[in-house]
């Protein structure tokens, strides 16, 4: 056997030599017994190894209290919920993926914009009004034509048909068509003549959704348009249908108005039902034929919110969402949406403590069910 190299000596000292090279230990020991030079190397390797170990020990050990595994499990569940909602968990450590996601979002926005240009749904009108209202005076424009925003308009005298019926029914001509044409024209040039019937609460919805899509610039773009700046971008239009879906959780409801928790519970006649462990971003209330509803927005992650609408069962009879299977995506407001590849919010309706609670968020149905299990 030739002289032993330093790496083999360290592997031997670390008790790893036999694992990586079976049979080598006996050969090494036999060689060391008869080779003085290698014994000297061995002694030197032993000194270096011990010296390095002592140096590392001088760094001390950090506190070694092991937190309970359940705490890590909870954190993992929270991370999965957030990841399901936004995908941000995967993007965070990888800047290139973040860039790719941004590009994909822009392309998706373009796709939406193309679809929106063909749409005859009043959804965009609501969005336009909402964003305007978000930065403008909180009062609805009294001069605006009534009920031009279709089922999203406040104080609509008759309950609208269920979503499925709305999809199947022929669209009435008239104000809705006019409003939509206005919106299409708005793609090319900013307009100030869009009806503003959905005012303050829809404005809040618009802001929330803008944040939810991580397109915080959209509101600023819209504001620029109002100032006579550049035309609105495709991104503004892209989020409109989702806004419409979220902006009118209760058919025939009056506009959502911000309230504090005490006021919300007073109107409901019971305690607010919330997802445990999440903060509360906003509380709003509205009345639907005398039946109060409360909408709470709880943050799920960066710019992503869970929307909870709580009301008494009587009000639910006029509202379509309860008739949908639990955990299915919310219905779109026109037939084009059914084939559009856009992320619709999942929606789950359940009864809890005498209330009908609707959960809505841009997460997977499984994530939404997991959140529902944390309702308290």
């Amino acid at each position, binding site marked *: 056997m030739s002289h032993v190299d*330093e790496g083999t000596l360290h592997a031997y000292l*670390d008790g790893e030599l036999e694992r990586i090279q079976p049979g080598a230990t006996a050969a090494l020991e036999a060689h060391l017994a008869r080779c003085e030079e290698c014994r000297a190397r061995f002694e030197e390797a032993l000194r270096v190894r011990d010296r390095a170990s002592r140096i590392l020990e001088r760094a001390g050990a950090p506190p070694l209290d092991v937190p309970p595994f359940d705490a890590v499990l909870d954190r*993992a569940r929270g991370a999965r919920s957030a990841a399901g909602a936004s995908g941000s968990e995967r993007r965070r450590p990888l800047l290139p993926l973040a860039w790719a996601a941004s590009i994909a979002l822009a392309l998706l926005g373009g796709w939406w914009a193309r679809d929106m240009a063909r749409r005859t749904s009043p959804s965009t009108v609501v969005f336009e009004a909402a964003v305007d209202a978000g930065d403008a005076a909180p009062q609805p424009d009294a001069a605006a034509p009534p009920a031009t925003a279709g089922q999203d308009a406040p104080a609509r005298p008759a309950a609208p048909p269920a979503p499925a019926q709305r999809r199947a029914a022929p669209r009435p001509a008239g104000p809705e068509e006019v409003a939509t044409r206005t919106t299409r024209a708005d793609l090319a040039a900013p307009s100030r003549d869009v009806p503003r019937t959905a005012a303050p609460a829809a404005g809040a919805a618009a802001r929330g959704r803008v944040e939810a899509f991580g397109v915080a610039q959209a509101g600023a773009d819209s504001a620029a348009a109002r100032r006579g700046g550049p035309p609105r971008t495709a991104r503004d239009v892209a989020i409109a249908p989702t806004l419409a879906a979220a902006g009118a959780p209760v058919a025939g409801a009056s506009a959502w108005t911000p309230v504090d928790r005490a006021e919300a519970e007073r109107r409901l006649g019971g305690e607010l039902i919330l997802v445990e462990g999440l903060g509360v971003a906003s509380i709003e209330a509205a009345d639907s034929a005398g039946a109060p509803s409360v909408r709470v927005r709880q943050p799920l992650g960066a710019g992503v919110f869970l929307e909870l609408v709580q009301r008494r069962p009587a009000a639910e009879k006029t509202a379509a969402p309860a008739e949908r299977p639990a955990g299915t995506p919310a219905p779109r407001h026109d037939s084009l949406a059914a084939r559009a590849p856009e992320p619709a919010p999942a929606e789950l309706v359940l009864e809890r403590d005498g209330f009908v609670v609707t959960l809505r968020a841009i997460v997977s149905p499984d994530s939404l069910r997991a959140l529902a299990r944390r309702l308290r």
Partner: protein
Amino acid sequence: MGVDWAELYRETYRELVRFLHRKVWDAERAQDLAQETFVRALGQQPENPRAWLFTVAANLARDEARSVVRRRKHLALMRTEPQTSAGEPSADEALERAERLEAVRRALDTLSERDRDVLLLWDAGLSYAEIADQTGLAVGAIGTTLARARRRLAEAYAMLEERHVARG
């Protein structure tokens, strides 16, 4: 085959914190990153979880070193040294510990990143095979790498001690 994550957590958490502590030099941050590593593992359910944990921990530590910790390292050293007694250490003791820790850190900094990783992984309790799996080195090269890393660490530390003594 299912992984008993609770058991793996109990077995590996301390090693992971020890490994991370020698990379970020902040005990609290090391613990936080160790938990973050497990959180990610639970989401990914990797096939070879132990090696995966150290790989992700090393990456997290690297990201950390590039951002915040490097700027506040000195404060971290002062703040997070483990308490060896029930009482608060005196200012002199705290300073001595901080200097000692800083010397180890500076000695480790003289090593190449690969040598340092191999040394710290061994110090954290990984086997040669696990280190090879994580670093991409041949398992037969781990002993050589460790030998070189240990020698350089000892030399660098001795040099720092000499300078310290010379300064008085």
